[in-house]
């Protein structure tokens, strides 16, 4: 018996989130005398999973799976789970993970706990803590089925090294015809995405207009961060919808979230609660965001941000 994890890769390379999923599953496995098997698609660096406690990788090399196809991916994960007689399947929380997890759960006849933020409080029955009410609260959830699927919330467990002897096997699942196909993918290359970012720099309506985003992008560049925005900013078309964070947008679970000219409405805060450290730059000392922040600068963004960029450049120059 084993724990099966789905490890996502891009252009043949595992994503960082895959190592977090591996670390998490390895910790559960260690407590329960189990081993961790990973299933991965067209991945070249599967060996690195051994560093995070994975003892076997089922690597699927198949042209038909070179592009994401939910039905075929979910079918393959199911076949891997059956082969390994897995009772627990763990996925991450990327867009693809969230697409696949409920499908895998139904196919496996397993209860599904999404947005899980910590190790199980018990494994029999399985009890996990997950976020609910879009990060405004947590729910202790018990899974009553024999098998379970966990969706691990991003950046909730971290990476834990656990050097393990890891073997990679080719795995050839039965693949059926699919009536869905990808026509085109439009993805900014070389940009850090909100989903993967450790630091997110976010701008609100206080920035007055899209022409003022140059300094936001520059600050993000210096920090190796992703850019984000509040809802009105994307509604006004100043920034793309994909950057909108909050209760009706994307959740952000970065290590550092810098909010510039954002008031801190409850719907915005719900989306950034899961970020570990929050910095607010706002010229209104009464802005609600200060109550939710760790560090704050009361000041005009148009003066503070350019200075901060200069100082960070100096700091980076002296520290690398």
């Amino acid at each position, binding site marked *: 018996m084993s724990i099966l994890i789905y490890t996502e890769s891009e252009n043949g390379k595992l994503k960082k989130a895959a190592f977090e999923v591996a670390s998490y599953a390895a910790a559960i496995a260690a407590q329960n005398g189990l081993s961790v098997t990973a299933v991965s698609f067209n991945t070249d660096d599967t060996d690195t999973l051994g560093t995070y406690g994975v003892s076997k990788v089922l690597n699927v090399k198949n042209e038909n799976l070179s592009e994401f196809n939910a039905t075929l991916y979910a079918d393959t994960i199911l076949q891997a789970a059956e082969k390994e007689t897995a009772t627990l399947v763990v996925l991450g929380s990327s867009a693809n993970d969230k697409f696949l997890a409920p499908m895998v759960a139904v196919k496996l006849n397993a209860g599904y706990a999404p947005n899980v933020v910590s190790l199980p409080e018990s494994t029999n029955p399985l009890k996990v803590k997950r976020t609910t009410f879009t990060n405004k609260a947590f729910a202790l959830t018990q899974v009553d089925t024999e098998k379970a699927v966990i969706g691990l919330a991003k950046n909730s467990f971290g990476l834990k090294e656990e050097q393990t002897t890891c073997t990679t096997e080719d795995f050839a699942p039965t693949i059926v015809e699919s009536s869905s196909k990808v026509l085109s993918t439009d993805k900014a290359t070389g940009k850090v995405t909100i989903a993967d970012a450790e*630091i997110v720099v976010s701008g609100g309506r206080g920035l007055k207009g899209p022409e003022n985003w140059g300094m936001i992008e520059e600050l993000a560049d210096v920090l190796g961060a992703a850019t984000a925005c509040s809802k009105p900013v994307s509604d006004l078309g100043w920034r793309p919808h994909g950057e909108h964070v909050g209760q009706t947008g994307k959740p952000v679970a970065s290590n550092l979230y810098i909010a510039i000219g954002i008031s801190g409405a409850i719907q915005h805060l719900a989306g950034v609660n899961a970020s570990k450290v929050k910095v607010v730059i706002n010229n209104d000392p009464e802005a609600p965001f200060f109550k939710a922040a760790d560090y704050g600068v009361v000041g005009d963004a148009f003066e503070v941000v350019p200075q901060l960029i200069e100082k960070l450049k100096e700091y980076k120059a002296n520290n690398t």
Partner: protein
Amino acid sequence: MKILVCISHVPDTTSKINFANNDTEFDKNGVQFVINPNDEFGLTRAMWFKEKQGASITVVNVGTADTEPTLRKALAIGADEAIRINATPTDGFFVAKQLAKVVADGQYDLVIAGRESIDYNGGMVPGMLATLTGANFVNMCIGLEVEGTTAKATREIDGGKEEIETTLPLVIGAQKGLVEEKDLRIPNMRGIMMARKKQLAVLEPEAVEAQTQITSFEKPAAKGDVKLVSPDNLDELISLLHNEAKVI
């Protein structure tokens, strides 16, 4: 085309979340309920199909009688009929099973649900429903066109978007971007009057066992006070982020 829009009835986004009964239940006291925002985007897109392509729209909710005002609002916006499955929605699987029966009985071509509800579940129902009914599924859907039985859907991916060609029957998980914010509809007087005459069928649930249960709730730990740094002393901010918070 027959469209089913799944409506979840959720606390207004401004709600403060509190729990009752030893933290085992959501405290509905003083809470306003609304159509889940993701479902509102979906319903608005369904209205486009109704007006441009002559589709019919049924809205459905799995819930107790107190969700009826939410269904009536969807009828006032323009849905043709409503179904309420008379049950407490115990978990995502339970809801998906109930909806699967509705889909099978009504032979819907397109099922529009939301990417996630902003209350309990976190994006379970649409994917489960699609898998249970054997329909195609597109999650985080931000664009949808249907011609005959072929659908072109755009979905958000991490850092961009992807266009998918697929076929009906189809389930989508709708979200912001599927329609523009300005196109969302507020029911007008005429809509509200017409909604009173539309059918709201109440059906009894299938016997289904939930797979998961919430045993208790918890609120996030209270936040310590913010540390303010003077705008003239940004070196201190950098030093705090490096030495104290250890995030840069």
